[in-house]
């Protein structure tokens, strides 16, 4: 008797059967905590809307950051509970495990955004305009925010665990003020600020240039491709890290 290798060729949206089962498993294992996080998230939306701030991009920023952070919860919990050993005894390869995590995270981010959007739209006194919230520009900005967070945090959590990432982030957060204090003391503050600003500005110029140079559809495609490439690179790094993990 040789059971069909569970690694069957049929794929749905680029995912094999194992990937879907892994996403399903993550949902079963984390549905309580995810639901709770979404509830807090929804509450935040209601409060934000009540504040009557007319700052649509702040809304996008906060919403997408929330959505992205929620997606890390299955991975974070697995790392904290030392559950990775169980995952690795399932009949799935380690690549399957990482791929499922990335797809699952994006799926969850999308669900999170939809939940946030519905709450923000339906909450009384809402200033969020539907046409803005589902505008392609808005969605791409959101996707960029989610990407930046996932691309950085997914491999880091796999490598260092949640605690490890915090331990890493604290010195990073301290580093910035220290740099400013030092630069102020040495009188180079202006040039530091200027070079930081110049850096940001040139990034904006490149994007603006792309936007002006390319036709609209081409620009969107370019951004999507860029985000995809970033995620893909991060995924490869995560796979390499996870392959090396000893459990």
């Amino acid at each position, binding site marked *: *008797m040789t*059971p*069909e*290798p*569970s*690694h069957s060729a049929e794929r749905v949206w680029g995912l094999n059967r*194992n990937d879907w*089962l892994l996403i*399903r*498993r993550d949902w*079963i*294992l984390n549905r*309580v905590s995810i639901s709770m996080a979404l509830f807090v998230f929804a509450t935040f939306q209601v409060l934000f809307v009540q504040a009557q701030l007319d700052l649509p991009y702040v809304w996008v920023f906060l919403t997408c950051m929330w959505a992205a952070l929620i997606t890390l919860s299955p991975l974070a*919990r*697995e790392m904290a*509970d*030392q*559950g990775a*050993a*169980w995952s*690795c*005894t*399932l*009949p*799935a*390869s*380690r690549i*399957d495990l990482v791929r499922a995590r990335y797809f699952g995270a994006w799926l969850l981010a999308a669900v999170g955004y939809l939940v946030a959007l519905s709450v923000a739209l339906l909450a009384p006194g809402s200033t969020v305009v539907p046409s803005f919230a589902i505008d392609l520009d808005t969605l791409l900005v959101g996707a960029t925010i989610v990407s930046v967070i996932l691309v950085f945090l997914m491999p880091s959590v796999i490598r260092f665990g949640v605690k490890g990432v915090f331990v890493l982030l604290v010195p990073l957060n301290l580093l910035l003020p220290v740099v400013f204090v030092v630069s102020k003391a040495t009188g180079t503050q202006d040039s530091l600020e200027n070079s930081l600003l110049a850096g940001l500005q040139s990034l904006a110029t490149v994007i603006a240039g792309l936007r002006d140079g390319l036709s609209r559809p081409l620009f969107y495609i370019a951004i999507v491709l860029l985000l995809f490439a970033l995620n893909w690179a991060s995924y490869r790094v995560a796979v390499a890290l996870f392959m*090396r993990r*000893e*459990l």
Partner: protein
Amino acid sequence: MGSARVEKEVAVPAQGRREALETGAESDGALVIDGVCKSYEGFVLKDVGLELPRGYIMGLIGPNGAGKTTLIKLILNLVRREAGSIRVLGLDNVTHEAEIKSRIGYVPDEPRYHPDITLENLKSATAPFYPSWSEERFQALASEFELSLGKKFKTLSHGTKTRFSLALALSHGAELIVLDEPTSGLDPVFRRRLLDVLAGILQDERFSILYSTHITSDLERTADFVTFLRDGQVVFSRPKDEVIGRWGVVRGGREILDAEARAFFEGVREREHGFEGLTSRVEAARQRFGDRVVIDRASLDDIMVLMGRGER
């Protein structure tokens, strides 16, 4: 420990392995390990080899820290091997990782599932991964093992966690069952029951079991093969009947124990009022020491404790 003695002992497995094949193994054994190495800081698993033909149960014995768990984790590819090969049901365990794992039923020494999830949910998260999952079998085992599926994993005792892990591992028609110290948290009544369940699995001669334990009495009767691991090395790996019943423990006064006698034994333990010596040559010992000693059959425990001891 003397290096000469180690070489002599390490030479044994090859013979054991050949005989293992003659007991009617299929061309692709359930588990074939060859020359596997793995090093951690302060611990080295060196050149480990063993062969478990299909249809049999092998005991993996050795003191704590001998490398049993590491070897099992290498089989599951939970840790990466540095050299050698591991073939499970004829397939390399790394290149065919996913397929092999669907055909292995694994019970870790400390089962860890998500603590806040009920057993029922843990099961339903796991079951669909296995093409041969049998819900009927799982329910039968769950009641046999007295599991309350509504309980959260973290509320279980160590023994019950192991029982749950066993129920999962035995419900998907796994052809190779790998148990890492399954009985350490279990009472004797359940241990006996587990041995019954395992013997039931072996009624089908395609199925095989690798069973690691330091409670050797579990294996004294039921194991077909025994692999003895110590300090990261295989001391021997052979059919159990060649070990038990053929090896003896010689007990006598210390005055007998001169250098020559000491060299005769595979291991010696001295006590205030006498010594215990382990030998694979019981007849020779009888002729040599005659009435001055008593000779008993060596148990696995005797072998584990005495082998390689007391060398000067």
